[in-house]
């Protein structure tokens, strides 16, 4: 009988590892090997957002859905920017970007070798204004 309870306890813990929840490394502020490093492409992207009136938090290293990612928040919306060796590889990473979004409102799009994924996990952007601004001010 004791074994039954132990196994039930283990199974109850399974959802925490499910697809619904973002990987811990995708959360802003999570630790990665490339913490603090920002390529020129990423810097240009952040500059473009700032010019559009957005105020991203400090970009911290992340491995959300790629090896070379940075995470931040913009108006409480979670944002991850991952860079890939080529535009084609970035295009292929759009779906992993959406997988990172998980069960919430969000989007993932490509800008050259960058994939930007945004997720409104805190429901702070119900009308999508911030996400739309992020999208529209991203350099083509």
């Amino acid at each position, binding site marked *: 009988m004791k074994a039954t309870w132990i196994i039930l306890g283990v*199974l109850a813990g399974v959802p925490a590892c499910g697809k619904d929840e973002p990987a811990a490394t995708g959360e802003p502020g999570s630790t990665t090997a490339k913490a603090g490093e920002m390529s020129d492409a990423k810097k240009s992207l952040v500059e473009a957002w700032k010019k559009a009136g957005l105020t991203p938090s400090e970009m911290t290293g992340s491995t959300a859905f790629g090896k070379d990612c940075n995470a931040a928040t913009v108006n409480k919306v979670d944002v991850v920017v991952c860079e890939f060796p080529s535009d084609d590889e970035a295009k292929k990473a759009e779906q992993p970007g*959406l997988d990172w979004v998980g*069960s919430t409102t969000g989007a993932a799009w490509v800008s050259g070798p960058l994939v930007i994924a945004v997720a409104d996990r805190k429901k702070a952007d*119900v*009308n999508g204004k911030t996400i739309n601004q992020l*999208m*529209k001010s991203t350099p083509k």
Partner: protein
Amino acid sequence: MRKISIGWPTILVATLGFQATAAADKRQVRYVNIHPVAKSDGGGMCQIEGPHVHVYEADKLQYRDHHGANFFVGDPVAYGYDGPKKSYKGHHPIHVHAVVGTPEPDVEFCYLDGAHFHAFAPPPGPEFQVAGDAHFYVAEPPPVYLEARPAFIGINAIYTPIVYTRPRVIVEPPVGWIGIRAGFGGGVHVGGPGVVVATPGVFVKGPKVKVKGSIGVGIYVPPPPSINVNIGVGIGVGGGYKVKGGKRGRR
């Protein structure tokens, strides 16, 4: 007391089954362009123009599929949208590819009766004419317009109870407008091929002839001598076409 034993496989299947159901309830649904937000998520309008996802479903009357994403074809003002908008009257095509900026042509039809808004203008060209600041569809509709109409005309039942300010269109419709053409939007009763009656407020019925796709196309109803719109009370135009202006809950 009898001891009840539950096998491990049973517990495992039940637990995993529950988890799968919970995950399925929250699946991502793809959208493109602005659309109403589900009431469960706060209501109002989602203003994301590019492709994005939510975890609520889109209905089959107010959305059309555009490369796997749901494109909203209803009136955004009914849901509180206060951005740039264009007035339309009656049924018309929507060049979805032009709205969302995709290369492959994707033309869908809006089946909203009467005056309504969209957040986009039609592409320039002869298929629309502007009168009284509203866009009227005056081209020959393709067969697919009539074929799909039964499936989508129910959209009007969604908007009838919604109280919001619709566009005021106080002009005579241009010649060739779909709303006064037999077999299309005007609800004109046709007594038989070649017999057309479209006098305001007057219905003339011949033997019941159902006007369908190929028959309806090609029957042309000339514009009535005068059409009164925006009077505040329903006026039958060409048969059963009610046009009202101002704030109201019913069309």
